[in-house]
């Protein structure tokens, strides 16, 4: 078969690689390797790597899918500057990220600390607390619309018990975004909780015992033992949460559809609108590349910052 003819190609040239005594075998191995890789590689080049390159090309075109494309140069990127919806989407996404990431991490960490007490029967609570993370975003988004019904909805009914007159949430200019953030924290805290729990369980107990001998207060042992030992996990969760928050879409589409006005229009929702409601594919591609650039810059910034704050054992 083809495998048997392959060695003949490389066999005549064994001289320049004396360290490699089996060139026949190596080329046979190379052929085997390609057979293993090809199913993945063909699909990867067509459907993942190719589209990445194509995104760059499409961003330089005026194209609405129905007519033939014309060259636009950097015009699509220049259009972003005076586009108020883009700036609004960018601001909303930043607002969402800046509030939801710290909140999610605080909730995840608090619950991980609670679950880290090694008492019997606690595992069932870990499972149940992970449940929101395992639900379908679209499905639970509907429940949250119901929870946020103005006036007599469950959220406002509970606020009413404390004498608080709750806002109209999803239809309120100022409270629609906090409502989305609250739902998103609920939906995603399970991820960080599991990572933190694994991190906490890896901290050697001797450190705490040494602290106890020295009379360290619980707060100080948290501040000087738990936090530094947990910092790699914290960093990891912050980086992934920020990337995820920049891509928020599902709950905003279902719960507010970007409104009121553009108050909760996120970057990804704007890309979706531009590409699939206005059929402005070139402009949508340019927006997606700008989103990518933001993610790269922010992530790189976090990695620079990490050197000072993250404690790696060893």
């Amino acid at each position, binding site marked *: 078969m083809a495998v048997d003819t392959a060695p003949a190609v490389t066999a005549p040239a064994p001289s320049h690689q004396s360290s490699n005594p089996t060139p026949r075998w190596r080329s046979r191995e190379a052929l085997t390797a390609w057979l293993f890789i090809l199913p993945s590689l063909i699909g990867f080049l067509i*459907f993942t790597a190719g*589209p990445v390159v194509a995104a760059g090309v499409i961003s330089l075109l005026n194209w609405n899918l129905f007519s033939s494309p014309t060259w636009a140069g950097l015009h699509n990127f220049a259009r972003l500057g005076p586009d108020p919806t883009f700036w609004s989407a960018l601001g909303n996404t930043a607002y969402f990220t800046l509030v939801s990431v710290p909140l999610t991490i605080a909730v995840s960490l608090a619950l991980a600390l609670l679950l880290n007490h090694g008492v019997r029967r606690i595992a069932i609570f870990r499972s149940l607390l992970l449940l*929101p993370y*395992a639900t379908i975003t679209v499905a639970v988004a509907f*429940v949250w619309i119901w929870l946020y019904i103005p006036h007599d909805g*469950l959220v406002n009914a509970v606020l009413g018990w404390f004498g608080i007159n709750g806002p109209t949430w999803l239809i309120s200019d100022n409270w629609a975004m906090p409502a989305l953030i609250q739902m998103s924290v609920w939906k995603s805290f399970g991820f960080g909780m599991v990572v933190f729990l694994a991190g906490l369980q890896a901290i050697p107990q001797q450190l705490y015992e040494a602290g106890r001998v020295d009379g360290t207060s619980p707060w100080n042992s948290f501040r000087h033992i738990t936090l530094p030992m947990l910092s790699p996990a914290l960093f990891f969760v912050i980086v992934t949460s920020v990337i995820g928050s920049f891509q928020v879409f599902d709950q905003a589409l279902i719960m507010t559809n970007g409104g009121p006005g553009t108050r909760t229009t996120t970057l990804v929702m704007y890309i979706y609108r531009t*590409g699939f409601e206005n059929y402005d594919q070139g402009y949508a591609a340019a927006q997606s590349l700008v989103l990518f650039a933001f993610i790269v810059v922010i992530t790189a910034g976090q990695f620079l910052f990490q050197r000072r704050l993250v404690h790696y054992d060893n």
Partner: protein
Amino acid sequence: MTTETTDIRRKLILFGCFLVTAFTLVPVVMMVLVAFQSDAESMAAKPSFWPSSWHPENLTRAFDLVPLGKYLLNTVYFAGGTTIIETVTAALAAYAFARLNFPGRSWLFGIYLATLMIPSQVTLIPQFVLVAKLHGIDTWPGMILPHAFTAIGVFLLRQFFLGIPRDYEEAARLDGANRWQAFVRVIIPLAVPAIATLAVFKFIGQWNNLLWPLVISNSDATRTASVGLQVFQDTNGTQWNLLLMAATVTTIPLIVLFFLTQRWFVRGITMSGLGGR
């Protein structure tokens, strides 16, 4: 003395866990409760929380309003198809990247790595254009193939394969097994946990995927549950009991799958940060 205080402490901790968990599960519980309310009760201006009468027939009514069964089956095709293709092709490629020498190996793997950080929105427009040009809109290949070849699977499985001692394979090779046999008989059985983790995450992620089915599917032939729910909302207004019944029905398979595969799910989160949304 210590046993008594630790017992009180244990009860306090469990009570705290109980309170927090009960609070957290309110939305899920309400989803199910409202699903069983009567039309009048669920759509009253003042929402009621506990159903004053139970209406299990809402289940069949929801299925009559929209083809929920078809949507769920479509979701299984979509999530299952992408999962199977990705897992199989990624395992093969990862083995070659981890164990076989061939010219261009490192730069080829570099191309895979380079796409890891790129958000799916960047490829959304080109993938849509490609599928449209190939007349794949609203077809299964158009739905499945663009999401079945991401780099993350190759990357994760390669990492895992690198951790398997070479000796195991060498022993099989000395017994006369070729590469393929060594891969199937030695590597795959050892890599079951990693492959299962990848598969579970891929499946759950795609079950949740809204954006891609939203742009590619435009009829009941390929419409998934996520998109179907959105259509349900558009066509039936806020008929809360039926909408939340539909939401319950589409969520339950995922929750069951989650409890069955929890071990791998938790491992996937901690080991690789899969699904860091």
